[in-house]
């Protein structure tokens, strides 16, 4: 019975996926290919299917908890939550190997958790504690774990792109087959560094995935107000001669597959690939922003109906990949993990004042 069910997961997964968008330079460059797909997701054992669910749920709960502790004053500064975009980060990063690198922007907790960074130390960083990944010096916008190839967490829009290109350059230089994945938003595509870095990666044929999380808004700016083409322009990046893939960012399996294809291709041939995932943040830009002035409640509701934390578990149940008890177990595990993280962060010491002057020079 399980066997007969599995394909349905894939189908279920993919049917909702990549309403295949046209791509600029390459024929078959969208994430959609029913046959490969069926085959592929046969390849995902249900343990992995469940792991992805657990990660998405962990991110969702982590973000909700950060929000609560922001209100309590334990988390400060700017706090950008990933709620709504979980399927994108989890699907994309699940296709990477430990030797690969990730560079991202300030909306970075989701990516950090998907990469498997220690939630205790992420939470401790949110609390500004010495036990945080950045010893409390970086905060929410600057999560780093170099040992896991997680190279930040960068708060200047677009500034992470050149950095990522440099890391990819180093892989090429050292003849490693490691891939560098850099995340950025739709708003970041308007920065000069976006253009300069895509051109550099293209002319140098760097092993990098430009992963655009197109959540349709840059802070309060609907993408249609800052780009004539509106939300759909990833198919118009011809100037860079870069393969471009468009995928449904609310579908973790579709994102995983599209990314896996890109990763395989880069390991084989090394050229950069641009992936765009359409997704949505259910909450405000940062914790300060109610997120309702510049967009209609109806639009948010429409996207909430595609909440991966509703649709994906439903698929798991429908297809028999999991039963409710299993999901409840995962949920309990996640709650325990979050509780432990908060406990760890709360009980951890603040950095010593003397440490302010450490880590300035190597």
């Amino acid at each position: 019975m399980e066997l007969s069910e599995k394909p349905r997961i894939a189908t279920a997964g993919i049917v909702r996926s990549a309403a295949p968008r046209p791509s600029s330079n390459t024929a078959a460059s969208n994430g959609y290919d029913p046959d490969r797909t069926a085959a592929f997701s046969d390849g995902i054992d249900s343990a992995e299917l469940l792991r992805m669910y657990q990660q998405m749920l962990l991110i969702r709960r982590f973000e909700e908890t950060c929000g609560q502790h922001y209100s309590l004053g334990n988390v400060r500064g700017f706090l950008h939550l990933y709620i709504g975009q979980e399927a994108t980060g989890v699907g994309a990063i699940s296709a990477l190997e430990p030797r690969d690198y990730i560079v991202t922007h300030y909306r970075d907790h989701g990516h950090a958790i998907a990469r498997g960074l220690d939630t205790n130390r992420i939470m401790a960083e949110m609390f500004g504690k010495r036990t945080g990944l950045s010893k409390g010096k970086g905060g929410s916008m600057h999560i780093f774990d170099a040992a896991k190839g997680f190279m930040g967490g960068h708060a200047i829009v677009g500034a992470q792109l050149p950095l990522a290109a440099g890391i990819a350059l180093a892989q090429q230089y050292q003849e490693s087959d490691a891939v560098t994945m850099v995340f950025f938003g739709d708003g970041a595509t308007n920065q000069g560094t976006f253009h300069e870095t895509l051109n550099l990666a293209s002319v140098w044929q760097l092993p990098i995935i430009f992963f655009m999380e197109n959540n349709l808004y840059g802070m309060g700016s609907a993408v249609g107000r800052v780009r004539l083409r509106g939300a759909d322009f990833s198919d118009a990046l011809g100037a860079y001669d870069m393969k471009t893939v468009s995928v449904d960012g609310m579908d973790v399996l579709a994102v995983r597959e599209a990314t896996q294809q890109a990763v395989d291709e880069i390991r084989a041939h090394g050229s950069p690939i641009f992936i765009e995932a359409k997704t949505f943040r259910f909450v405000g830009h940062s914790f300060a922003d109610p997120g309702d002035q510049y967009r209609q409640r109806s639009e948010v509701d429409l996207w909430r109906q595609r909440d991966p934390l509703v649709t994906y578990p439903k698929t798991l149940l429908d297809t028999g990949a999991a039963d409710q008890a299993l999901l409840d177990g995962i949920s309990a595990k996640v709650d325990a993990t979050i509780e432990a993280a908060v406990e760890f962060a709360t009980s951890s010491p603040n950095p010593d004042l003397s440490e302010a002057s450490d880590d300035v020079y190597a």
Partner: protein
Amino acid sequence: MTERTISIREAITEGLAEAIETDENVFIMGEDIGEYGGAYSVTKGFLEKYGDKRIKDTPISEAAFVGAGIGAATVGLRPIVELMSMSFSLVAFDQIVNMAANIRYMSGGQVKVPMVIRAPTGAGVQLGATHSQSFETWLAEVPGMYCACPSNPHDALGLLRTAIKSDNPVIFAEHSHLYGSQGEVPNDYYEIPFGEANVVQEGNDLTLVSYGYGVHIMQDAAAQLAACGIDAEIIDLRSLSPIDYATIVGSVQKTGRAIMLDTARRTGGIMSEVVAEVQERAMDWLDGPVKRIGAKDVPWPYNRGLEQDILPDADEVVDAARKIIAF
């Protein structure tokens, strides 16, 4: 004349609205100043009230829209450009430093650039290394531009009026701590010229010089000093370019002692300029070295305790005073 009490935010909002309403060549552009209402709500409601010709939301392209402001200014408009943070001026630094400040000179005086660049500045709210910087201290050193840093609503409105009427580029640095800070503002129209420091409090024993948020620190320090019988004079520079050296030197000639405070990093703060200049102009009147205080010379940390420790405060000023006056 009658006054009213408003916040610095309200004073700036009022100055901007006044300019939009009285000069058809004035327009405002920046990221999320329209539909979103501005990251610090300074332009809340402007888009609805004045329309998208006068209130322009921009893409996240600081270099392009700062440069566009310069271009528009060279042909007769008076752009007011908002940067979401002074820290983001770095991505537009070439346009500000090489274009806005130089284009008049390079053209032999053929063009002028009546543009204001407004931005919240300063540390202290745990935004970390890239979001807490005070680049107005560098920009104030560039010839061809002016730089104003209000410490209270009265100055904010008066300096902003001067900035918008100036035919030169003006960096208008608004310390993010002070948006809510209240103060009295005259109902009648007034302007505050650049280059005229404000003697916030007269005193004979010691001269305390700062600007923006630093003035509030100096006021706390002066109160503590008064309790110890030290009579401090407080000078608020109000503009970092030009700097009113006459007032500072005059005060130092009276007191013989000075402490100068940046809330920016000590190294690279504007007070290095002021101290170097004042010791050169007033050495004969100085009873001891001019003390310079600023934030510690490290990047800005996120942790509140570390950040507060790095920031200068009134106690540091008082300790410095102790070192130069035995009391």
